[in-house]
């Protein structure tokens, strides 16, 4: 806390986004990064609280007051070290994290929180620019133990990096052709450009992580074989089973899961060719996105960039209030109306709308039928006579994910699932099967990048502790 009164002198200034006209013409990041000086001033607002509630807000326990102070004092090298002490990929969270830390910032009680996420990203970007963030930290002693990590999303990457740094031989298997999980193929480039993943991979390779992309574990290699060949295994396969909407007309062409659509666009931006027959494009169409969350919002931004005629986003739940309600006090995550940069770019939003049917004509999607709903005593009821019908040529289903895919690896290993269908783990990340651990969306259900990284770190510690207990026999057998 270089300046104990900083928060009284400087007010919160957020980074600007590029103008809508400009950014709709490209796929580059929306946010215009603030100059270092401005970020320094923002960091001076941190009060270095006796009880830093941001620590509780950030799932990684990032040492926020420490690096705010270091940034304020211009000590970037030290800030980089302190930031990476708890966060493997601050360049990612600094871009896509919804920043629960800021929600719990003490300044957020009565005024506006410190721009923690911007400070985080600035430290990371400066450290990327001078290369200091990417210095490999290989273990000084190898353990000779082999760990397989399945899935290369943020959870798998964090687990792999931590395990490699602990001296274990890590092999990371990824079904897709590229590493990164949802960071690569879910989150669009306009939120996070993908070059940063590749640079982290170089660092991880130097630390000893072996990447195998294009390997569907469970298909190409059986779970049993992995268990035999490795001393431990981390399942970080995400929660990829999408929630469906089984209503009349679901089979019509033009009704797609959000991920089908988003993956294709991420591939195009990466320079891949997408088969024209299976291509899903919003160009010239009236698009309806069903689901009001992050995924839905990414569909909105992607559709608009593809040149959709119009985009409407429907949400089943009622419109949240603009300000916190008393039953949702600080430092809780505020359940208030949020508007993403994509939603700002020109989209109709409607709440408390339930879709009843997809209407087709001549085998083609032409519209949807929906009704307004109210929630009474926790039960949803449709409002009589409130039927609406919307014309549309493309519907994207972004209603969340119901858990990890069970067919294949999960079934083969026979790990227990919890009531919500996620892989059940104990606090160290261990599943019901000895030596098999799980992390990220696989064990937690659909969540956030920051939670995935936190889980990855936790599970790495769990695996490490477990490996210290069990005898070396297995490694020798393999």
């Amino acid at each position: 806390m270089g300046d104990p009164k900083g928060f009284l002198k400087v007010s919160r200034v957020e980074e600007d986004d590029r103008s809508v006209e400009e950014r709709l013409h490209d796929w580059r990041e929306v946010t215009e990064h603030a100059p270092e000086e401005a970020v320094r001033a923002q960091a001076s607002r941190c009060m270095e609280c006796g009880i830093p509630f941001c620590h509780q807000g950030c799932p990684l326990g990032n040492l926020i007051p420490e690096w705010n102070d270091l940034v304020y004092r211009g000590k970037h090298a030290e800030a980089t070290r302190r930031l990476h002490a708890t966060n493997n990929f601050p360049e990612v969270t600094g871009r896509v994290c919804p920043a629960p830390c800021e929600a719990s910032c003490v300044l957020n009680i009565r005024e506006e929180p410190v721009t923690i996420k911007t400070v985080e990203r600035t430290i990371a970007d400066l450290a990327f620019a001078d290369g200091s963030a990417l210095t490999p930290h290989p273990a000084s002693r190898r353990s000779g133990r082999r760990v397989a990590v399945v899935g290369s999303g943020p959870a798998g990457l964090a687990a792999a990096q931590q395990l490699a740094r602990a001296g274990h031989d890590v092999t990371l298997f990824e079904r897709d052709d590229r590493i990164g999980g949802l960071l690569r193929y879910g989150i669009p480039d306009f939120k996070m450009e993908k070059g940063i993943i590749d640079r982290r991979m170089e660092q991880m390779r130097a630390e000893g992580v072996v990447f195998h992309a294009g390997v569907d574990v469970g298909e190409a290699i059986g779970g049993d074989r992995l268990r035999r060949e490795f001393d431990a295994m981390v399942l970080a396969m995400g929660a990829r089973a999408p929630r469906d909407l089984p209503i009349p007309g679901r089979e019509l062409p033009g009704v797609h899961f959000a991920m089908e659509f988003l993956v294709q666009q991420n591939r195009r931006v990466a320079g891949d060719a997408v088969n024209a027959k299976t291509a899903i494009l919003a160009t010239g169409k009236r698009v309806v996105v069903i689901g009001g969350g992050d995924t839905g919002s990414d569909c909105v931004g992607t559709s608009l960039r593809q040149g959709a005629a119009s985009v409407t986003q429907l949400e089943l739940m009622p419109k949240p209030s603009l300000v916190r309600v008393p039953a949702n006090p600080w430092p809780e995550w505020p359940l208030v109306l949020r508007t993403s940069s994509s939603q700002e770019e020109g989209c109709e939003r409607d709440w408390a709308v339930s879709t009843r049917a997809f209407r087709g004509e001549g085998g083609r999607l032409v519209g949807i039928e929906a009704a307004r709903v109210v929630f009474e005593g926790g039960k949803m009821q449709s409002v009589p006579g409130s039927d609406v019908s919307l014309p549309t040529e493309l519907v994207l289903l972004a209603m969340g994910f119901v858990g990890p895919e069970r067919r294949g690896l999960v079934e083969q290993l026979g790990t227990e699932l919890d009531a919500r269908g996620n892989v059940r783990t104990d606090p160290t990340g261990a599943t019901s099967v000895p030596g098999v651990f799980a992390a990220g969306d696989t064990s937690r259900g659909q969540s956030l990048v920051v939670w995935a990284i936190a889980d990855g770190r936790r599970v790495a510690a769990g695996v490490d502790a477990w490996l210290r207990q069990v005898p070396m026999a297995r490694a020798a057998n393999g």
Partner: protein
Amino acid sequence: MSETGVGTIAAGVAKAKADTIQIAGHDGGTGASPLSSIQHAGTPWELGLAETHQVLVLNGLRGRVRIQVDGQLKTGRDVAFGALLGADEFGFATAPLVASGCIMMRKCHLNTCPVGVATQDPVLRARFRGTPEHVINFLFFVAEELRGIMARLGFRSLEEMRGRVDCVKVRELSHPKARLLDFADVLTRAVNEEPAKDEPIDPSCCVPDAWQMSSTDEAVLEGARISLKHGEASQTHVQLTNADRAFGARLAGEVARKYGGEGLRDNTIVIEAAGTAGQSFGAFATRGTLIVLEGDANDYVGKGLSGGVLAVKPPARSRFKAHENVIVGNTCLYGATSGKAFFAGRAGERFAVRNSGAISVVEGVGDHGCEYMTGGTVVVLGPTGRNFAAGMSGGIAYVLDDERVLSGRVSKAMVDLEPLTPEDEETVRALVTEHVEHTRSARGAHVLSTWAKRHFVKVMPHEWRRVMQLRAGQESVKRASGHG
């Protein structure tokens, strides 16, 4: 403070007719206090409380006082244990503070409390959102939990619970160190052989004879009657002993009642006292009162001095060197606002702490002199202890420093040390002359006669200099506009 032997102290305090004895546990304390105090003072309140209750009961004193306990009490369970170990009252600080908005920022000492609890900054205070209802609500929860515990134990009132250590069970703990703990002494039920003395607290115990007027008080009021009535001059002689506490305070009260803060003309009421005065001699003395003591005085001389003049000097026949001996105790002129005090001898520690306007001459002071002073003038004709001028933001001290040692004894965070200006010399000389007139101080006379060879240092607070400059600026503006 809860610690071994606190029971003995409590017994003494009870005999001295205290109303309430407060046992503070080791883990309380404001976040603004030094770490050494937060972490290394006292023992758990349970120990001090148990000892206090037991000693008072055994000595037949328990009925005379209420025992209050505090130190991170937060729950009804805490209250229940406090009562069972012997407490009548329970101090809550942190928890109600949190209930009303404190978020434990630990910035109490920086004036930057972001929720407006511990700050004087109006901008930040505006952020305070606490209400009495928040605290009431919290305490209702405490009471509710306590009620449940009482019901389970079969108690109808807290009085019934008091000292019932037989209701406390020691939990079996497996930790080897925990097994070394022996609670037998804490959980001993104290009983007095004379049952009448272990009676419930007598509410009238709080109106002790200490409230009755002492004979010296009476003599002084009687002697000053014409002054009080008609504002005419009066003179009284009294003999004091150290049982005469707060001598003069009652008179000050009467003057203030009749004449308000203005008081009387200088020297209207003159009191000549002799002997050893008890604590708080001359406390709150008002304008128009001159109290001269030939002898010495205990702590707190001139506490809250409000315009009166005090002089303390050794008896004329004494042989010792006055300036090498302590004549008044600790914490003299605490919170004085105006008036003058002359001491022909040394004072104890914390001399003129929080003085905001009184003028004083003294011949030496102990540690922490002029601490937190915000106004007034202090002349020290002798050595000071360490940590002089700590937290001093106003007023000026002039210290005779022939040995050139002052610099090492001053806390320099808030003050500068500098030579005297010709005006300063004038001021100090005049004050020392006045000192000699009031006390026939040999030291003062000697300093005056060797003035040119003496080395004084001026202790000037940074804040005070700023205030002085601002005032000077305003004056010149006034003068200029007056002319224009």
